């Protein structure tokens, strides 16, 4: 690293703007902390500036003054509308020493900030767009997830019901009755499994969705008399399940039937029979 005296040797050339880029950079670092060198540099700059007088004086065109006034007025309008009054103070911090940066450091012209602003604006718009797309994808993914979760829950319920049926059927003394569709729904079928404790599980398939305000009701028919069971509806595939307790009166040779009734269920059947285990 160069010492103070080495930097002093560079000052005259720097005042002339003739240092190579690397030297100028290291000297500028030194100048931040060395007021003595800063003051001497100012003097060299004053000397160098006198060289301008060696150039023959020349007159610009008469219109140039008007053009400058125009540009300045536009600049006033621009800075008022864009609030770009920050520039002088930023420049002030950087060049408090009246130092006009060396040509090599001056590549950043006044046009750059506006290009930068445009580029930054574009990036912002692209980010906003990406954000929107991500939000949309996220929303769609959440909907998919909710649908899948519902399907999983439904499937789990079906599995649980089937397991219940299997357990029930495997229990000692358990029985299964097949139900067939009547002329209302010839394609429908079902089964009721029940054990000796009276626990009964119905699984029906091929039933149409009940109209609004209606539901299917299970009947236990004992000795020709229908005893009311619970009501149920079907899912989108036309399947319906139900767990119920058989009335003790129906425990011996029961007949099962499904009718379409008011949604709350009724004490005695009123609607058409859809499924039946009886002849």
């Amino acid at each position: 690293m160069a010492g103070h005296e080495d930097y002093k040797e560079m000052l005259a050339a720097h005042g002339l703007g003739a240092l190579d880029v690397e030297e100028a950079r290291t000297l500028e670092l030194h100048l931040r902390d060395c007021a003595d060198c800063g003051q001497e540099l100012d003097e060299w700059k004053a000397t160098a500036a006198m060289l301008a007088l060696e150039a023959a004086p020349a007159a610009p065109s008469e219109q140039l003054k008007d053009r400058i006034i125009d540009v300045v007025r536009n600049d006033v309008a621009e800075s008022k509308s864009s609030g770009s009054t920050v520039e002088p103070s930023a420049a002030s911090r950087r060049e408090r020493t009246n130092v006009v940066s060396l040509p090599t450091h001056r590549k950043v012209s006044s046009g750059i900030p506006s290009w930068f602003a445009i580029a930054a604006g574009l990036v912002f718009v692209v980010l906003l767009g990406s954000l929107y797309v991500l939000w949309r994808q996220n929303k769609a993914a959440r909907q998919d997830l909710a649908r899948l979760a519902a399907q999983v829950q439904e499937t789990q319920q079906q599995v649980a019901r089937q397991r219940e049926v299997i357990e029930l059927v495997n229990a000692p003394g358990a029985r299964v009755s097949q139900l067939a569709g009547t002329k209302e729904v010839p394609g429908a079928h079902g089964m009721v499994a029940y054990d000796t404790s009276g626990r009964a599980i119905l699984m029906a398939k091929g039933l149409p969705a009940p109209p609004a305000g209606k539901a299917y009701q299970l009947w236990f028919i004992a000795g020709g008399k229908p005893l009311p069971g619970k009501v149920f509806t079907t899912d989108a595939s036309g399947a319906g399940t139900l767990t119920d307790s058989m009335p003790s009166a129906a425990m011996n040779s029961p007949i099962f039937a499904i009718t379409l009734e008011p949604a709350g269920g009724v004490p005695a059947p009123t609607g058409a029979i859809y499924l039946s285990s009886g002849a």
Partner: protein
Amino acid sequence: MHAEPAQTSDIDLLHAIARSEEGALTALYDRYRLILFGLLVRILNSREEAEDVLQEVFLQVWRRAADFDQERGRPFTWLVTLTRSRGIDRLRVLAARQRLTDSAALEVRAEASDAVADTLHAEQREIIARALASLPAEQRGALRLAYFEGLTQSEIAVRLGSPLGTVKTRMRAGMSTLRELLADQPQNFFGSGPG
């Protein structure tokens, strides 16, 4: 001769410009247009480019007059340094653009300046001319290459086929002599005006 510029100092003009007084900017322009335009024509060899850069310079003066710190130097130095810097910037851009065309710039040089009489600064011109004339030719040459062509010491060494150390020594010696000769001039040698 202009009567008005003699009455308002450069410093006062810069303060007024900092307060966005348009009249102060045109007064400063009137006072220095011949020097600054002459400098730019010398650097750029083109009146058109010189006008373009001079316009940039005065826009810059308009925006940054508040940054001028009179503790650190005179308005003349500030203004000339800014102008030269902008001129060299433009020269480099043009050089990069025209490198392939290899235009006969030297032939243009003689007639490009379109010199006029600058009665305001005639005395100061005379002083700098005498000071430069007193320098050895190689020192004067090095200073001119740096100032008007924007060459660094290394570039000057290559241009002249001289060792870098020699160029550095010549440049330092030339600047020191100039500084001594000009230091003999009154404090208000340039443009500070009354006070």
